[in-house]
């Protein structure tokens, strides 16, 4: 947090290279959030720049109440979300079982003897998984990326996105279970 404070103060004081340092530090997070949301390289670049311009304009409003990473992630998420809303692209799709309280579990189809090394070495399987990740709705893709790739805790993801922790967990659970179902179907097809 003290590093955040020093960096923010440097940027606000207009010290040479400070803002570029800030961008360099958080560009990966910003890029991953926006890219997962919009899935378009040109839009990602433009929106990522827009997010950092907004960070620069509004940095004086940052009160150090959360980590700078969360604050910047929040800006990136809102920029991408607004872009999708303008294009009328839904960021989340209803999932079966949401309303009736049905417990979603692919546990019944577990088979023993799964070979992890063989599975990860299978290029086709990896390609299939990536395609399935890409096919998820924007919000689910983004939540998975924040949680798995960026290692952002759920409480911080909730701050970034404004979504309740329970809802985030539900999305994470269902998305991962769905991916596992698809993985199993693929393995079944191979067997």
């Amino acid at each position, binding site marked *: 947090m003290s590093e955040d404070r020093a960096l923010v103060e440097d940027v606000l004081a207009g010290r040479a290279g400070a803002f570029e340092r800030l961008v360099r530090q958080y560009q990966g997070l910003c890029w991953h959030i926006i890219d*997962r949301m919009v899935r378009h390289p040109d839009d990602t670049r433009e929106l990522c720049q827009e997010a950092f311009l907004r960070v620069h304009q509004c940095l004086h409003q940052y009160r150090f109440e959360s980590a700078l990473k969360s604050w910047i992630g929040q800006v990136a998420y809102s920029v991408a979300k607004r872009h999708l809303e303008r294009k009328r692209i839904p960021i989340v799709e209803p999932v079966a079982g949401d309303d009736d309280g049905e417990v979603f579990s692919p546990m019944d189809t577990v088979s023993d003897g799964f070979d*992890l090394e063989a599975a990860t070495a299978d290029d086709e399987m990896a390609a299939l998984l990536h395609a399935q*990740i890409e096919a998820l709705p924007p919000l689910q893709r983004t939540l*998975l990326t924040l949680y*798995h790739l960026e290692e952002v805790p759920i409480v911080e993801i909730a701050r970034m996105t404004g979504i309740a922790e329970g809802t985030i967990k539900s999305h994470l*659970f269902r998305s991962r279970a769905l991916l596992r179902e698809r993985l199993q179907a693929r393995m079944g097809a191979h067997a």
Partner: protein
Amino acid sequence: MNHDDRDSPTPKGAGIDPREWEAQERALRAERLKLDAGHGDARTAQYRVIARALRQPPVSPMPDDFAAQVAARVAGAPRLDERVEAWLQRLLSGLLAVVAAGALAMYGPQWMPAFTGLLPDGAGAVTGWAGAVALCAAMTWGLQHLRRDDGAGGVPG
């Protein structure tokens, strides 16, 4: 940012199977810690394949000089308070011009005889030319001002 068990206790309700959630979280931790492939059961192993795929960054490449590009763009863009100041200045200038024009329209006929009385004979033509020059100067100044303000804009949002 560190992640530990406190961040993701097994959620209750919301249609989530606690055992399945635990398997997902075990797989996530195993991938982060790069534990041996033999660690955990078959279910966890399947989730590890998924966790591994999820830890790979998206495919769109980020330009190498992205940070420098953004910093250069920011250097050419005014801050929010500067933009507010510019807009306020423009608004007040416009207001002043409107008030001045109104005052001239209302009280001009009363003032003109006093001014023309001060001028020597044949001053009517001189006044006309002086007015035209003043108008041209005002228009040039106004256009330059507007162009400068437009060039300074360009920050999205």
